[in-house]
């Protein structure tokens, strides 16, 4: 029996009869992390890491059957050993290790190797078969350390405060937003947030994670506050009536895609800050090497060219069609 099969519902483990991050409704889903393209609504049972449970409940509904396990703890289902290991992508993100009759598979979900100061730090997991994301699987994607980027953001914010101009920064409501809030210099000014982000902040705080003070930007906040504030908005909220209340602001976008000028110009952002929750090219290659795996299956991103490159490097790599990496799902969530 195969340990993992690639089916039209998602990655399937026949001996345990469970799916990993499936995109169609199934009975039992193992979930790598809370983003909408991985944790979809409508499965009967969910299993994720403990710190992902409140996130999943917040997004999918408190009535759903969602069970948590600590990182590293083995769960046995029909003789299959299943365990979750930190992926460093966002809080509660995990790589899922599946071991059956001595054969080990790891499903990476989304990951980054750099420590961002908030998400549980990525740990390499030895395996025979590694199913990996490759969102940024081209050599042009090489990240600058977080420290430098955050210092760029701080300078931009401080300059805007001096110019009495609101600073609007776009970031996904789950993960990126909290990473920024946790890292920027909050002595520069107040941090105001979009509603979807503030709700997620509450979820983080309910888990005992301490974040600097933030305030939901609503009618109660005086407009004079805007000019000093760092306003964290979701990408989808730019152009909405909520964002229209903020006048004459400088717009910064925080994303790995900002590495390419064309992407930034398309977004109409004044500044693009290259900060990603995904591994860059060196990060991907380093992670793959660290697994010791010979068989690599890139799932989303530049899968074809990435696989071709890995094959030239002596791996047995094969791209897999999945439905991950769909931004629209994350936007709909907001």
């Amino acid at each position: 029996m195969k340990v993992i099969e690639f089916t039209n519902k998602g990655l399937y483990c026949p001996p345990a009869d469970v799916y990993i991050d499936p995109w169609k409704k199934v009975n039992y889903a193992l979930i790598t992390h809370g983003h909408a393209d991985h944790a979809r609504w409508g499965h009967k049972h969910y299993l994720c890491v403990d710190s992902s449970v409140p996130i999943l409940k917040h997004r999918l509904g408190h009535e759903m059957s969602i069970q948590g396990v600590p990182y590293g703890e083995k769960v046995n289902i029909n003789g299959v050993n299943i365990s979750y290991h930190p992926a460093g992508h966002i809080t509660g993100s995990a790589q899922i290790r599946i071991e059956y009759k001595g054969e080990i598979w790891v499903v990476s979900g989304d990951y980054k190797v750099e420590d961002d100061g908030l998400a549980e730090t990525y740990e390499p997991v030895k395996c025979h078969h590694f199913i990996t994301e490759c969102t940024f699987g081209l050599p042009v994607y090489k990240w600058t350390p977080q420290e430098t980027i955050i210092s760029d953001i701080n300078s931009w914010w401080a300059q805007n405060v001096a110019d009495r101009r609101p600073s609007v920064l776009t970031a996904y409501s789950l993960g990126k937003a909290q990473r920024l809030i946790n890292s920027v210099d909050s002595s520069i000014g107040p941090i105001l947030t979009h509603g979807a982000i503030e709700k997620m902040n509450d979820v983080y705080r309910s888990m005992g994670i301490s974040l600097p003070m933030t305030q939901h930007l609503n009618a109660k906040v005086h407009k004079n506050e805007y000019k000093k504030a760092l306003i964290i908005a979701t990408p989808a909220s730019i152009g909405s009536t909520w964002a229209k209340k903020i006048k004459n602001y400088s717009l910064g976008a925080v994303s790995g895609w900002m590495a390419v000028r064309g992407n930034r110009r398309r977004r109409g952002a004044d500044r693009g800050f290259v900060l990603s929750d995904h591994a860059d090219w060196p990060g991907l290659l380093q992670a793959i090497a660290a697994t010791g795996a010979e068989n690599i299956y890139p799932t989303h991103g530049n899968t074809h060219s990435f696989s071709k490159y890995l094959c030239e490097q002596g791996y047995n790599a094969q791209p897999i069609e999945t439905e991950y990496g769909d931004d629209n799902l994350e936007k709909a969530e907001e």
Partner: protein
Amino acid sequence: MKQFAALFAALDRTTKTKEKIAALSSYFQTADDQDKLWTIALFSHRRPKRTVSTTLLRTWAAERSGIPTWLFEEAYHTVGDLAETISLLANDEYEPVEKSLTQWIDEIKALKDHEEEEKKEFILDAWSSLNKTEVFLFNKLITGGFRIGVSQRLMTKALAQVLQLPESHIAHRLMGNWTPDDTTFEELLLADGDNMDLSKPYPFYLAYALDQDVEDMGEPSDWQAEYKWDGIRSQLIKRQGEIFLWSRGEELVTHSYPEFDVLAETEIDQFAIDGELVVYSDDGLQSFNHLQKRLGRKTVSKKFKREYPCRILCYDLLEYDGEDIRHLPLAERRQKLSTLLADLQSDISDLPLLLSEEIAFSDWESLTTLKRNARAANAEGLMLKLRSGSYKDGRKKGEWWKWKVDPYTIDAVMLYAQRGHGRRSNLFTDFTFAVWQEDGSLVPFTKAYSGLTDAEFKEVTQYVNKNTIERFGPVRSVTPELVFEIAFEGINESSRHKSSVALRFPRIKRWRRDKEAKEADTLANLKNLLNN
């Protein structure tokens, strides 16, 4: 280079016109004159002669980053800009060397007579002595094409501010055939007329498309109507006995059109005519298709001259008897134009210039009918110009309007997709469309790029990613399911195309989500339009 890189960063960091002008002004106030001159040249699409091919740049960049060339190409297609791709592959560490913009350019120019190995050494050294932004700019000095949202107009505004001169003066001075090698900042912008380049054209006055009901335009007698000819907008200049022909793209094309040499035979001198370059044979005005045969030819054989004789249909007169008359009302300029053409006619029997005649009309309704039938006159539509208006520079609203015939449209199926460049890199934006043939197969008939919103491009990109059948380098063939309405201005027979037709100005009008592929048009539908 530091100062130029700082200017670039400032321009690149804002989408606001006011801030861009401020950045340019402060640069023009402080930079070295020769650097300023080069900056103006680069931002107006002039670059030093290429001394290193882009193929070599690609090869060396791939080699330097230790990646196979196919992967470099893949990255290039995603980034959409060669200079940027190379800069993204550059190392974070570098050994800073400070040279001015002009110095770098001079060194690049000096590579001309060097061996490939020496060129390589120079380029690799440059890449390791500059930071990422500077590597990008350095590469752009070789590849050209600064797309940083600085229009000619913006630069004109900034220079006008710094030099305290009228914008129209600056706009005029920036026109024409100059390069930083044959002029100075002083001479280009400040010196008086005597030193000015003899060939220098005036900025073209460009019209917006009519955006209101023609009935609301007021008194018909205030407006001059004429056909909007489908050729190449041109400026014909004669000064001190020399003839210069400029195309709208600011290209000097005199030698491609020897028809106009005959103007040297008359004593009449010192004039500049704005008109449309067309093919005009004994049978009258020919379609753009005929003119296409003459485009871009450096030498013109007798046969081509005979088969595709070129003429200019004259719209306007900008300089008369050595005087810039752009400030005069249109009606007066047209009168002078008629006089000039009549005088030329009496000296030259086979004058290659014709007056683009005014269309007489008494009310807007009758003009609307004329517009609808403009294609029969081989025109794209009509032009409406305020009789009392002066000749402006650049695209200005209010006094000149183009009023085009409604385009042809056809529903077509998307067959191939390719990634875009620049602002649209990473998205599939260049598509090939097909219509049905009698045997039930699809035949590609046109490519089209623009016409969809960014959101739609994104959606189509997702479709392409999920429905790729085959990959041919950057091009993908996709499952033929999506239907688009394609609009175009003209259609001609063509032996070079599989569909046997060629379209003029094809673009995507809208996405027909309501239609299935089988409901798209047929080749027969398309060919029917040939007979119109």
